[in-house]
């Protein structure tokens, strides 16, 4: 029987990093939707996997894609980090390619564009006060 990849059932999984205290290993929590047999509703069921991360580039809170290793690296580590899908605090929207946070893009945050009328009048007043007049000492 050939085992080309994965002595493990899950070949590719996506999860969230919950711990990086181990050297070159990331603890990843993977959630799957499981049907409750009585309510007939899907609930998230969590499972933790350990993934080999040689460059220690994962931070707690990243969303990562794990790939199954061809054979187990150690007793618990059966996957390795394939790609960081969303880096925490630095999410790039794949459709536009721009950095974003929540429902806003971070790129076009310039001072003049997103200010309301009240803001501009307040700021211009403050600027007037700060203006250095040659008559003052």
């Amino acid at each position: 029987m050939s085992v080309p990849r994965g002595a493990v059932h899950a070949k590719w999984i996506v999860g969230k990093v919950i711990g990086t205290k181990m050297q070159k290993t990331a603890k990843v929590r993977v959630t799957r939707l499981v049907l409750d047999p009585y309510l007939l509703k899907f609930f998230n069921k969590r499972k933790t996997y350990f993934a080999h991360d040689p460059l220690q580039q994962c931070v707690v809170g990243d969303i990562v894609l794990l790939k199954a290793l061809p054979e187990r690296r150690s007793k618990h580590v059966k996957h390795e980090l394939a790609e960081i899908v969303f880096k925490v605090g630095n999410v790039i929207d794949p459709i536009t390619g721009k950095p974003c946070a929540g429902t806003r893009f971070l790129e076009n945050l310039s001072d003049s564009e997103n200010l309301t009328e009240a803001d501009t009048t307040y700021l211009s007043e403050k600027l007037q006060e700060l203006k250095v007049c040659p008559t003052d000492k």
Partner: protein
Amino acid sequence: MPMKGRFPIRRTLQYLSQGDVIFKSSVKVMTVNYNTAGERSEGARKFVFFNIPQIQYKNPWLQIMLFRNMTPSPFLRFYLDNGEQVLVDVEDKTNKEITEHIKKILGKSKETLEKEEREKKKLSHPATFGPKKYHLRECMCEIEGQVPCPALVPLPKEMRGKYKAAMKNEA
């Protein structure tokens, strides 16, 4: 007493089995990024609310992850077995359009499904009797027109072994 919840029909087996998107075996993970507010994400929200249970029911080994309010634009992302990733933009699409689209790009075709069903049927022979799990019928007495089960209706004298043995001894 009516069912609890907003659209409790989503929680019936009949509704779940009506899902017609069955993914190819190379699709391993599906990720849905959508927003909880905003009308551009409306179709994605309806998709998650109505269609994700159907998809997960029909594809029990597919990992589905939902991400809310991470990016301004809603999208779906599929991770295939060969490392390929498929990005599907679902901005301003209704949930029906989304399901049609993913069925077209990554779903098993009707011919494949029919072929699989035929293969499955071939494994079990319909003319054998046995436990319900493996056969259609358990005993000949279940079929109309055959001798009824002696547990319900006593057999006529001539068919009983006791009578037949007595007749043989007599002769």
